């Protein structure tokens, strides 16, 4: 079995916003590759949306709407003077232009959420052993997302993890000694499992590897506290 499901809880956590950035990236990327995962993520957000309409309303203070309309009026007046501003961000494009074209082509075919981050990281591949390169995409609260690029026939050294590691194949395929993982397949390695993924002959394999921090569900309970200045929220 090469396609491992993440379980029901992950989708409600996804919709709620409680997942770490790297875990959310994993699901977004999986959703881009797998219509079933897309549907599960969408359904979870649908459920949250319907739950929102079912909330007992908490009235805003009188005048709240007037204040909002006042802001809109101010904005409309400013837009009349200055005209609509062009908010296009060329930064990623500029960084992308610096990349060697060969390396760029490889990144451009990746699914959207990963592609944007990889371009943002300016394709900054780091040597990680013969035929193996790694690009860090995101790090947050002990959770980490990185791209792993394996030349055909090469593999990452045998390793185990402090935390659960999720590996999603974006292109090519690898074999970890137990099973073959192709594009869109997800491998879930528990902390105590040692594994050694090796890319199949013939094609470069690029995978998204996410290690979740010690807190799988960071939870929103501490979010106000964190917002108000780094008191321990979790």
């Amino acid at each position: 079995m090469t396609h491992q499901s993440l379980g029901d809880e992950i989708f409600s956590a996804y919709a709620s916003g409680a997942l770490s950035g790297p875990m959310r990236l994993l699901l977004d990327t999986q959703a881009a590759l797998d219509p079933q995962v897309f549907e599960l993520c969408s359904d979870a957000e649908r459920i949250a949306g319907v739950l929102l309409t079912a909330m007992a309303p908490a009235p805003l203070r009188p005048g709240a709407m007037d204040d909002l309309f006042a802001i809109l009026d101010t904005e409309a007046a400013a837009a009349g003077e200055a005209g609509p501003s062009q908010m296009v961000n060329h930064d990623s494009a500029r960084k992308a232009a610096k990349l060697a074209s060969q390396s760029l082509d490889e990144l451009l075919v990746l699914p959207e959420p990963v592609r944007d981050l990889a371009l943002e990281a300016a394709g900054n591949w780091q040597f990680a052993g013969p035929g193996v390169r790694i690009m860090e995409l995101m790090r947050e609260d002990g959770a980490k997302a990185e791209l792993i690029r394996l030349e055909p026939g090469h593999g990452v050294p045998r390793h185990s993890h402090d935390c659960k590691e999720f590996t999603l194949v974006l292109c090519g395929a690898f074999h970890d000694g137990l099973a073959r993982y192709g594009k869109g397949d997800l491998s879930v390695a528990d902390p105590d499992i040692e594994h050694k993924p090796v890319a199949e002959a013939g094609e470069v394999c690029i995978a998204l590897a996410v290690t979740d921090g010690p807190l799988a569900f960071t939870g929103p309970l501490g979010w106000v506290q964190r917002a108000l200045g780094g008191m321990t929220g979790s």
Partner: protein
Amino acid sequence: MADFKIRTDVPQGRETLDALVEETARQNRAAFATLFNFFAPRVKSYLLRLNADDALAEEIAQEVMLTVWRKAHQFDRTQASASTWIFRIARNKRIDIARRASKPALDPDEPSLLPEPEIAPDEATHASARDLRVQAALKGLPAEQLSLLQLAFFDGLSHSEIAERLALPLGTVKSRLRLAFDKLRKHLDADDL
């Protein structure tokens, strides 16, 4: 407030809410006011539930509605209903606030986070049909199951965290949630979807 009646208690159907966002995209302020009256107090209620104090909940609810006005032109009812779309905005805002210290992982003004896969043309109405079914299924759920769903979908708690919070055995939480999901799934998997 003088120009608009506040009627937060009026139940709104999906069609109506979707149409209101589309009208808002055409800069229709009366439509936006109706949308505000329905959603702002519910968004505030959602934020209060997540431990925001009254002033913060009010401020974020205002920000959420401002984003609704600014991004209304991006709304597409074939992809998500107004309620799902506005929920995403509210959720992203609160994540943004929680993570403001570090680099924000989400664009708080970008409600359509989930990249859309290529959807076949005959599935254009698919999203709205699914939405109606979720609504129908949730309507029939007992309050007890609804509150479990809120803990999972608003608070993002895992099953064992829910069990701990409610001082219930894990098995009880799992079986109650399974009841709720089975019911949802029965609606979602029905016939022509």
